[in-house]
């Protein structure tokens, strides 16, 4: 039955390996990029991917993994919605003897392997940049992602760690922009009304919101006085960095996350030795180095 | 087809989910005549008219209007070609004003852009209403009108279309005599101009007053067409019902009146009615008469807790009570059958059984659970007692004819075994056979010692059923008549009582 087929696959045999993939949200550009890399890699390796979209719902994600188990896939790649809430999926997959690889973010239950980067670190990098730019002194506002989601929580945590190191850096206001550019723009407009020139820097949990903040600041003619930094390095953000409107973004390597995830999954499926943890470093993108990140 | 035939219907058949509502029906209408269409509730009169106006499509048959085929037309076409209709259900848009309703679908007056000119519509409507002699503000939203006023607006709408045939489906069901007279005057003028009227009504006396020709339907089948002059009431009823009907009103057998069940003293509601005092005894029928808008319904609503009273008191079995809601009223043993059957009477989406037992459901249940079998038995028994015509206890009430719906509403209240029953226009829109049955029922419950208040605009009904009659005019009590004092003339005289004497009226 199934296990023999995977062994056959291991022996370079007739049957294709099947990998089930559940992604946090296929409406998020970065996640789509990770997935596209996985698809590319899978195509090259000759494996079948079954991709499903958890639409940010951990419940849905757990159900999707259950479904993968029922389909007897050879390996599962999960881009978790939630540290804790997506954990039952890991438990279930392991109990069914199917290797499960977490990509991009973690769950509290240890999976077979982890490929990705630490979200807390990305925020540290971003905030540190702000702190240094401002010389450790000034007023910062922070735009959160959707409240309660793992990425929001971790990015907030990283930012606060840095803020603690710089007692003269004051968090003037914080509010959720729900990852959304339009919402962030409105929020920034309102903050400008409230604080005007008091604001020295904006830290946004993702580029979409960062770009929204930039737009609002530009409209108010304040951009030159305020530093805006965000995370993800989506193409729009890279362009903005190049133009100098966005001061910095933090590059998360979708390409490597995607291909390493597939690599690990295949090794695991074929019962070969594999890296339990593959950490892909973040990189700060500023005008200085943006050219290397821009795709032709 | 003779030269003065304007509308001819042949072999018309219409089936609703397997039930034949019309079966091979024919009808010939001549210019300038008033053609009465008669039949019991559910005979198919409205269905036939809705087909004529284009709201329903027939299964087969042909309709010729001024010599041309009409069967394919939609409502818009038919209206333009000169047929208009007063609908039995009063099809109005509640949020729009009287003027806007009257000219709905015909607003195109402001040229190419089809801009609305509401000022002109209002003026035109105002003129029309004034010409009809009706005092209704044309800029008043229809939702604030009383049923009777709405019916007058329906009439205005139909006659404003300059139609050559006007269908009137029970145009007077909500009207009192004065308005009926207005309508008849208008009908007279129209027929003199050659307009044909198709007239549907359950009020026999109206037929004999204005009809030239009478066509009778029974169970969806064509029965006969006769000149009105050749008919007498008994023959007509026999044609409609298929048998002879005994006397309409039960013989008064002098039920001994018991204790005073309900008495009101100086009851008033600001701007609506004032100084109303009366009492009803067990086994007695108190009739309340008055012109349209005299405030009769408002008194009933106030006693039933639907409206707040501003002065006076209500006593039940001599004990003063405060009624804030229908639950309070029902708790005190009061039952109320509203004049607005659709609005306050029944639940259209529920079966006959469910409607009948609704007010008394607690009795047919143990704890939270309904005792299915008992509920069904009770409902079936009540259906038998009321002689409800339905395919069974599970038929939806919407599918019943108006008369049978009314019986279901009455049955619902009776099962709650009220000690005091208020009936507001209990026979509105109901055919003569069903009327007789409702009268019989009222009499029966009277004999069982229920105190009954009956509000009605039909004087024969008031006179035939009441032990005593209270007459109202403009929210004030003008007299209290005993059965032998009362006559049509006396009642009318007190009902027309104008505001000359502003002092306390009544006693």
């Amino acid at each position, binding site marked *: 039955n199934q296990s023999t087929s995977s062994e056959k696959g291991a022996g370079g045999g007739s049957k294709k390996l099947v990998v089930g993939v559940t992604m946090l949200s296929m409406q998020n550009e970065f996640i789509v990029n990770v997935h596209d890399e996985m698809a590319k890699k899978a195509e090259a390796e000759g494996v079948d991917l079954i991709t499903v979209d958890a639409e940010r719902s951990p419940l849905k994600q757990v159900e999707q993994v259950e479904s993968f188990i029922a389909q007897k896939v050879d390996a599962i790649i999960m881009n978790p919605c939630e540290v804790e809430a997506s954990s039952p999926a890991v438990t279930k997959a392991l109990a069914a003897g199917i290797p499960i690889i977490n990509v991009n973010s973690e769950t509290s239950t240890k999976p077979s392997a982890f490929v990705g980067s630490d979200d807390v670190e990305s925020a540290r990098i971003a905030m540190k940049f702000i702190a240094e730019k401002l010389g450790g002194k000034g007023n910062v506002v922070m735009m959160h992602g959707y409240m309660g989601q793992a990425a929001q*929580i971790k990015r907030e945590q990283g930012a606060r760690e840095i803020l603690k190191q710089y007692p003269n850096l004051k968090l003037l206001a914080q509010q959720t922009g729900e990852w959304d550019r339009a919402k962030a723009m409105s929020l920034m407009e309102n903050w400008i009304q409230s604080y005007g020139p008091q604001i020295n820097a904006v830290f946004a949990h993702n580029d979409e919101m960062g770009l929204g903040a930039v737009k609002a600041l530009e409209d108010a003619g304040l951009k030159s006085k305020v530093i805006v930094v965000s995370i993800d390095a989506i193409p729009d953000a890279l362009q903005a960095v190049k133009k100098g409107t966005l001061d910095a973004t933090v590059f998360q390597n979708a390409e490597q996350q995607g291909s390493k995830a597939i690599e690990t999954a295949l090794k695991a499926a074929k019962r070969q030795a594999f890296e339990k943890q593959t950490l892909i470093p973040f990189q700060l993108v500023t005008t200085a180095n943006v050219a290397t990140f821009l795709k032709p | 087809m003779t030269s003065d035939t304007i509308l001819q219907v042949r072999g018309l058949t219409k089936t609703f989910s397997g039930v034949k509502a019309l079966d091979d029906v024919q009808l010939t209408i001549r210019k300038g005549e008033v053609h009465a269409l008669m039949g019991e509730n559910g005979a198919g009169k409205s269905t036939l008219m809705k087909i004529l106006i284009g709201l329903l499509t027939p299964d087969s048959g042909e309709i010729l209007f001024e010599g041309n085929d009409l069967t394919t037309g939609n409502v818009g076409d038919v209206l333009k070609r000169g047929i208009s209709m007063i609908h039995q259900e009063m099809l109005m848009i509640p949020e729009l004003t009287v003027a806007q309703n009257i000219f709905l679908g015909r607003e195109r007056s402001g040229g190419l852009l089809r801009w609305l000119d509401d000022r002109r519509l209002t003026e035109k409507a105002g003129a029309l209403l004034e010409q009809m002699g009706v005092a209704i503000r044309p800029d008043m939203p229809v939702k604030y009108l009383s049923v009777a006023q709405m019916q007058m607006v329906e009439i205005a709408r139909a006659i404003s279309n300059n139609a050559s045939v006007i269908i009137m489906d029970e145009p007077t069901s909500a009207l009192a005599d004065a308005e009926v007279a207005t309508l008849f005057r208008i009908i007279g003028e129209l027929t003199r101009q050659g307009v044909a009227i198709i007239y549907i009504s359950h009020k026999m006396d109206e037929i004999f007053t204005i009809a030239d020709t009478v066509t009778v339907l029974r169970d969806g089948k064509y029965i006969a067409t006769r000149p009105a002059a050749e008919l007498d009431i008994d023959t007509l009823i026999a044609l409609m019902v298929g048998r002879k009907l005994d006397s309409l009103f039960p013989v008064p057998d002098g039920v001994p009146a018991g204790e005073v069940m309900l008495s009101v003293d100086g009851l008033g509601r600001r701007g609506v009615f004032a100084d109303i005092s009366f009492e009803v005894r067990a086994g007695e029928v108190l009739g309340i008469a008055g012109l349209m808008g005299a405030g009769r319904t408002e008194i009933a609503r106030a006693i039933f807790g*639907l409206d707040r009273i501003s002065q006076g008191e209500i006593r039940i079995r001599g004990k003063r009570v405060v009624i804030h809601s229908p639950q309070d009223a029902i708790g005190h043993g009061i039952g109320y059958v509203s004049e607005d059957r659709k609005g306050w009477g029944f639940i259209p989406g529920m079966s006959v059984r469910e409607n009948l037992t609704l007010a008394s*459901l607690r009795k047919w249940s143990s704890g939270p659970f309904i005792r299915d079998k008992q509920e069904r038995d009770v409902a079936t028994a009540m259906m038998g007692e009321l002689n409800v015509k339905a395919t069974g206890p599970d038929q939806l009430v919407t599918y019943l004819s108006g008369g049978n719906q009314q019986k279901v509403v009455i049955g619902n209240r009776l099962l709650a075994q009220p000690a005091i029953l208020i009936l507001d226009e209990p026979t509105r829109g109901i055919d003569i056979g069903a009327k007789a049955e409702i009268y019989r029922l009222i009499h029966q419950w009277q004999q069982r010692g229920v105190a009954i208040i009956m509000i009605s605009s039909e004087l024969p009904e008031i006179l035939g059923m009441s032990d005593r009659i209270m007459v109202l005019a403009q929210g004030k009590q003008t007299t209290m008549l005993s059965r032998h004092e009362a006559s049509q003339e006396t009642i009318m005289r007190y009902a027309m009582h104008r505001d000359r004497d502003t002092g306390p009226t009544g006693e």
Partner: protein
Amino acid sequence: MKNGFTTSFNQVSTSYKTRVQGIGKYGLLAAFLLICIALSVLTPRFLTVQNLMIIVTQVSINALLAFGVTFVIITGGIDLSIGSMVAVTGVVAASFAHPDTFPVAVPLLMGLLAGVAFGAFNGFVVTRSNVPPFIVTLGTMTIGRGLALILSNGRPVSNLSDSFNFIGGGKVLGVPTLIILLIVAFISCTIVLRKTVLGRYMYAVGGNEQAARASGIRVGAVKMAVYTLCGGLAALAGILLTSRITTGQPNAGAGFELDAIAAAIIGGTSTSGGSGTMTGTLIGALLIGVISNGLDLLNVTSYYQQVVMGIIIIGAVVLDSLHNKTNA
């Protein structure tokens, strides 16, 4: 509220069959079976005991919410706050469910209590004010979401006891607890709706509020009851969800209201009140679940899934309405 001197006949006739004959919804059932057959043909993985069990498990949370909202819609109301109630009750339950603190009954009771209180508040505002239920529950939806975040401090409440996690994640004799609870809830709700005085009153209030009042029904009390019931069922859903994902999530349940309302309406509950059945709602929820499971099994790309999902749902209801159609 609109009047309707004249409900059209048509409207009545469609809902008539379904309601009174009780079994009803043949059209929808047919559409549902058709989809199931199609899926069985398209993929052998669909018609396996294990997969069917997974579908029912996945459907159960939405079905519970849909049962609750069916009660509300039958009375002519609406409840948009169910998704937020899931979050609030989940967070509340989770806060009492850490290992070695309280016995498992405590988080259960506290969660239910929170839901019932929330629902009762909805009912109170709806009956005491003139504000349309849409606005009331839209307001409490926002309030509830805020409360869940405040209570949890914006972070998932995790580290829950095994016994608590068993409630929604365990199996009894090989059958997932969720399925068992779903069946129990379905039967109870059906009984409430069809066999009790309260159920009858719900139809009456939704069918014609004035007539219900004139029959002596305390309309306000009935409305209080349905919103409270709906809150209770949402709490059950919230607790089960929390237990299944072993975390109380302050942003759980976002958007669930639309799915639940969709299940009810697909199942034949009329938004204008007065008609609807639990069986219909259950089929509606199963339909949504089966389509979503089938599309996953067929590996339809996520974007196309949404397109196909929309088309099938409209299609199923078209099929249903064709079946129930009477001539105009």
